[in-house]
């Protein structure tokens, strides 16, 4: 029996549904020392802005039960260095390239998207949900009107399909999903991190310098699965699910909930091979249950 793992996102064919969550994988260089990135459906890069961003003071991370908080602050080299260095690097691998775009203003996002328009990348993911930068980022991700506007503006400049990455720090995720769809998004991805805080009781100070940070890892997985399920039913767009995925079984929860693809994030820190092994785990699940095509399982959860 043949097992077909390929999925299609807005016309882009991925060899398997596994990608990397932005910010956990750089532009792939560090993990390419462990395995061939061609094992993945796509590499999603760390967020890139129009100019270099220095990021937040340290400490930038703290471990929490089954997860971690981070407030890196989107340190990145800016789009010019990215185009010159990171895209040619990623082109060496047989995988799709998804560039995560961050900005402080709509004009920032559009500038980056426009510069990428003639670049050999497959999709763009717009980060309107980073909780760790003061301006931009999440400001566009918590109000439906703002999200719809930024989506519509970005779409004017984008030549590649646009993924809007949604924040879980909202009252109603379906309202946000519909706003992105109304603005013309091609795909949704969720969840970004949940805003959290950790206090060092011995020093009586905040565990990370930014005070608050984004919670990720297996601790957030049930929240993420629920939101992916709700968002996938609220819109007709494909959804990329993420939040605590460590292996193929975790990935299958998201796919059954309605995700057409999945991202592995924090798990890369626990195991450099986590994304590759997740792709292998999905294949193993299909073999175990004799599922010929992964697409038959997208949203296949039933009562």
């Amino acid at each position, binding site marked *: 029996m043949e097992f077909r793992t390929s999925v299609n996102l807005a016309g882009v064919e991925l060899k398997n549904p596994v990608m990397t969550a932005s*910010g*956990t*994988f*750089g532009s792939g*260089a*560090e*993990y390419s*020392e*462990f395995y061939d990135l061609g094992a993945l459906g796509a590499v999603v890069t*760390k967020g890139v802005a129009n100019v*270099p*961003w*220095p*990021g937040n003071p*340290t*400490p*930038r*991370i*703290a*471990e929490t*039960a*089954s*997860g*971690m908080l*981070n407030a*890196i602050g989107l*340190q*990145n*080299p*800016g789009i010019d*260095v990215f185009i010159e260095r990171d895209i040619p690097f990623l082109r060496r691998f047989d995988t799709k390239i998804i560039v995560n775009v961050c900005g402080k203003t709509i004009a920032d996002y559009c500038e980056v998207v426009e510069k990428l328009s003639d670049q050999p990348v497959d999709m763009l993911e717009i980060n309107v949900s980073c909780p760790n930068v003061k301006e931009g980022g999440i400001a566009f991700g918590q109000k439906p009107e703002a999200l719809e506007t930024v989506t519509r503006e970005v779409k004017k400049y984008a030549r590649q399909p646009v993924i809007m990455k949604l924040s879980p720090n909202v009252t109603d995720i379906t309202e946000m999903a519909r706003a992105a769809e109304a603005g013309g998004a091609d795909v949704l991805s969720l969840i970004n991190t949940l805003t959290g805080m950790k206090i060092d009781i011995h020093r009586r100070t905040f565990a990370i310098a930014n005070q608050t940070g984004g919670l990720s*890892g*297996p601790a957030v997985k049930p929240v993420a699965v629920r939101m992916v399920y709700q968002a996938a039913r609220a819109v007709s767009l494909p959804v990329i699910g993420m939040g605590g995925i*460590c292996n193929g079984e975790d990935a299958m929860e998201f796919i059954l909930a309605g995700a057409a693809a999945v991202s592995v994030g*924090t*798990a*890369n*820190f*626990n*195991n*450099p*091979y986590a994304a590759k092994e997740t792709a292998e785990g999905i294949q193993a699940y299909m073999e175990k249950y004799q599922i010929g095509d992964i697409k038959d399982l997208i949203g296949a959860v039933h009562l």
Partner: protein
Amino acid sequence: MKYKETAVITEQREIAPDIFSMWLQTDAIAKEAVPGQFISLYSHDKSRMLPRPVSICQIDGTKGRVRLVYRIAGKGTEEFSGYGKGDTLEVVGPLGNGFPLNREYDRVFLVGGGIGIPPMAGLAERLPGEKLIVAGYRNSEVFLKEELEKNGKLYLASEDGSVGTKGNVLDAVRENHLTAQALFACGPAPMLRALKAYAAEQGMDCYLSLEERMACGVGACLACVCRSMDVDAHTHVKNKRICKDGPVFSADEIDLG
């Protein structure tokens, strides 16, 4: 190259209160590791997602083993301290750059403070030239004394004066009227800051091993950055990655505040 290995503990013992010495059979890592590099240790308890970066104390390339000497600092290191001979740990390494070994100084300082002392033992074994080793402890609970004495002249300092010079490592340097052409150090940030100033004042080359909270340990996540004097190669913003560009830096390339 970096390797992920299932390392087997060949020996573990407590060498001072809360300070543990662990020898690991890690064939690929031991073959390539150099002093000043570190290893990521992964908890068996998957509720602890992040690796614990531990600097390499000694390397036995022939037997394929590395020695780690670490302090119990939390739940992860407490878990590791409970394992014994024959137990296994998932590890990734060797990570980071290590100390420069090819500068051919006639006489160097190797300075370690607290849990920054262990990498000096392995460095003393591999670094050519005369070594003046200065180790700063909190009190009389000294560790690795024999290993350090084997490869250099050892001077001790302790905060309470119970061993060696009363005070810090620089007090020991001054009390003994020591001089050298270069200084290699690992220890707490205030110590490194003082050593950087001292080396600049004396016109010595100075190499410092830094630490910071890490997540990936391989240079991808940008959690463990330090301020640098020049723009860094990765982001071009004067932020160097301690896990990847370091942990050892020439003192004049970093801003310790």
